[in-house]
């Protein structure tokens, strides 16, 4: 943060930030879509009850078996019962699966991001406040994490884990463990610059230990850049989850996830375009929304970036 030392002025500042965010059109649009998606994910069982559908029930009568199992009727079998049509080959309700898929896609991405932030901030602050030796060791560790080809490693890791392990949690952990390097770097850099500030020096002189300094003086200053960064890596994590599920090492059937739906949809894209369109459009919309919101957040929180972006 380059803003003036402002530790005691948090409440008024938060309010101005909020006002500025609400005036940022990109943020408002992005955040609204994100909110809707989160609400859908949280309310998945309720929504499915409202639609009268279940994500795992087969409907063989809705399929044209002779033509490979494509849904009968137009637009992938859209009807009053099946609002987005049914899945080819099984007849499972697409709306129900998309809604439950949102839980996996968002849940994994959010958990992974939270984990990445926690690990990254802890390591970054420790490196920034610790001595030269601690800094050197932790920084090399961060270099190591950043240089690992994470997708390849994630595929190999997930491929050897026994199938009985809870898959979504595992995905979140693997994505987080392989991807906290960026957060750690940013946290360390900010910590190094913050620790030279007068108010931090004052706190140290007045006898605060490193733990208290980190908690009371450094963390509030770290929040804006780290939050902005988190908002930017969240969609990336979502893409990684979709990619891993697409490659067959993500969530296991019958658990739906958007990436996995896209994966099975690839063989159907001509026979049943709806099946590709539904998860594809949703994934695109959600990612776009996150990026819009993150960019808005960055514009508001980081004046330096605002200049660069304009």
């Amino acid at each position: 943060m380059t803003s003036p030392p402002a530790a005691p002025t948090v409440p008024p500042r938060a309010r101005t930030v909020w006002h500025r965010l609400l005036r940022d059109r990109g943020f408002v649009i992005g955040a609204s879509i994100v909110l809707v998606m989160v609400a859908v994910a949280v309310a998945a069982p309720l929504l499915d009850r409202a639609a009268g559908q279940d994500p795992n029930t087969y409907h063989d009568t809705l399929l044209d078996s002779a033509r490979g199992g494509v849904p009968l009727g137009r637009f992938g079998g859209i009807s009053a019962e099946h609002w987005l049509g049914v899945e080819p080959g099984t007849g499972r309700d697409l709306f129900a699966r998309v809604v439950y898929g949102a839980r996996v896609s968002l849940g994994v991405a959010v958990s992974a991001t939270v984990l990445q932030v926690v690990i990254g901030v802890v390591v970054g602050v420790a490196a920034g406040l610790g001595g030269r030796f601690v800094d050197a060791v932790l920084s090399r560790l961060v270099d190591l994490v950043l240089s690992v080809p994470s997708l390849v490693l994630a595929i190999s890791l997930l491929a050897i884990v026994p199938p009985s392990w809870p898959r979504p949690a595992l995905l979140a952990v693997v994505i987080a463990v392989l991807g906290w390097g960026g957060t750690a770097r940013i946290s360390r850099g900010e910590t190094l610059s913050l620790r030279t500030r007068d108010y931090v020096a004052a706190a140290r002189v007045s006898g605060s230990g490193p733990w208290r300094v980190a908690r009371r003086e450094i963390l509030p200053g770290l929040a804006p850049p780290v939050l902005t960064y988190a908002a930017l890596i969240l969609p990336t994590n979502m893409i990684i989850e979709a990619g891993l599920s697409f490659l067959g090492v993500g969530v296991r059937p019958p658990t739906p996830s958007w990436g996995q739906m896209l994966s099975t949809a690839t063989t159907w894209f001509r026979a049943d375009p709806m099946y590709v369109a539904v998860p594809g459009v949703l994934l695109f919309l959600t990612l776009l929304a996150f990026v819009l919101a993150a960019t808005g957040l960055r514009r508001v929180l980081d004046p330096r970036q605002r200049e660069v972006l304009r």
Partner: protein
Amino acid sequence: MRRTVPLLVAATVLTGALTACQGDAGTTSGAAFDPATCQGGTLSVLNQGGITHLDPARLYTSGGGNIPSLLFRTLTTRNRQPGEAGTKPAPDLATDLGTPSDGARTWTYKLRDGIFFEDGTPITAADIKYGIERSFAPELPGGAPYLRDWLVDAAGYQGPYKQPDGIKAIETPDDKTIVFKLRKAEGDFPFLATATQFAPVPRAKDKGVDYEKHPISSGPYMVASYEQKKSLSLVRNPHWSAKSDPLRYACPDKIDVTSGLDAAVINQRLVTGAGQDANAVTTDAVVGPEQLAQLGTGSELDKRVARGEFPSTTYLAFNLKKKPFDDQKVREALSYAINRTSVVNALGGSAVAGPSTTFLPPQAALGYQPYDYFPAGDGGDVTKAKQLLPAGGLSIELAHENDDANGLGPKVAAAVQNAFKQAGITVTLTAIDSATYRDVTGKPATQPALSLQNWGADWPSGGPFLIPIFDGRQIITAGGNFNLAQYNDPAVNAEIDAINALTDPAAAAKRWGALDAKIGKLALVVPLTHEKDVYLYGKNVKNAVPDGWRGQYDLARVSVK
């Protein structure tokens, strides 16, 4: 047939018989196909499965395979006709199907005249004997296990490299005669003699494991270049003559096989037919939903599709040594609860799979007798299933492969899981790596209580279908076991021996069917579906008629002229 050994004949090569194709006979012009004037051009073969071993000792084929059969002539071969006629063996290097004596324990063959290797050397009975002996060498594993079991005193034979004296049970009194001495009566011997292990190999040209780099051809084509798992290029064998080989038409001048392609890509290329792809076929990429959705609509594609049926059954295998499947009521409950329509759809719809209530697939050559002891209808009889189940429902595990390539993957498993859920049975799915799946299920020590399985015919007869699955003497504890029920009934074993002794396939078929119908009452397996095969071919390809043995068009008979 072990589906885990696809070799040249990749998993889906398994195809079948009869059905529609006799009518449209694969000819696009409507004019009758004339094998005498079909010569010329280059045929492209676009495949998923790579050629792992081009050694006749190592190939595990049904009826000699499709590509292997272009290179390797065998004592007998499949008849290469559509429908029922195609399920019969026919003489190839031999003059007839063999003369049984000593109650089908001795089989004598005479070789044709005018048969040569690609270098012009005449093929002798000793070459065939040597080819069989090599297939016993531990250096060259992979072939079907029958000969080791059938030949007198051959079980311990280690191949000609370690034991150059050879197998005493195969006699070659002169260059044109070969005699096999079996330790038990085997009426199906002429069917087994279609396997590539019965192809001649010249001892002077044998380079052991390196022989596959350029196997010496006895068929209409020979290897011009071969890259393992990637490509194989075949040109005409100048010393092969059509007069000595009435079954192979050998129309194209050149055949290029490309492997390692994605099934969706292969089928899209066949549909589009751009450039050389107009002359293309596939031996292992059954059509996907993309193409099925375009078929039957009167489109141009309808004229370029070959539909056959390879005898193969997908089923649920119980382990009777494990609870709760020791209880026949539980097995019956599951037989009632199954929803075969869901399974058919999971496999790709009614064009590529049909519901089965019998273990034998519906081919007359296998002795198929219809029965349905636990009528589940199309969608399952949940009420009946619940009546048979213990109060409080049931919780079971189902083992399946971790990918869908062999039709034993998550899609089918999920369909089974959903069907059983309706009857109050909770199914936990256990995915096992497809590369080791048969190792896990084939060893009684590691065998799961319930697993998804399929079984295809090594040749179109009831024996190779029922014996490995239900013969109690075939329970192999060391691994490679297929009698997953671990069922051993001396009466059934005795009946198997009695049918094996029959040399009349029609009489044997009748009794195989009756045996299947008898065993079916015990619900040792839940038959799910039988296989149907739909293969596309390029615009210029003619005579792509599926034969009754493999359900697939025969590369030795298609033309691109």
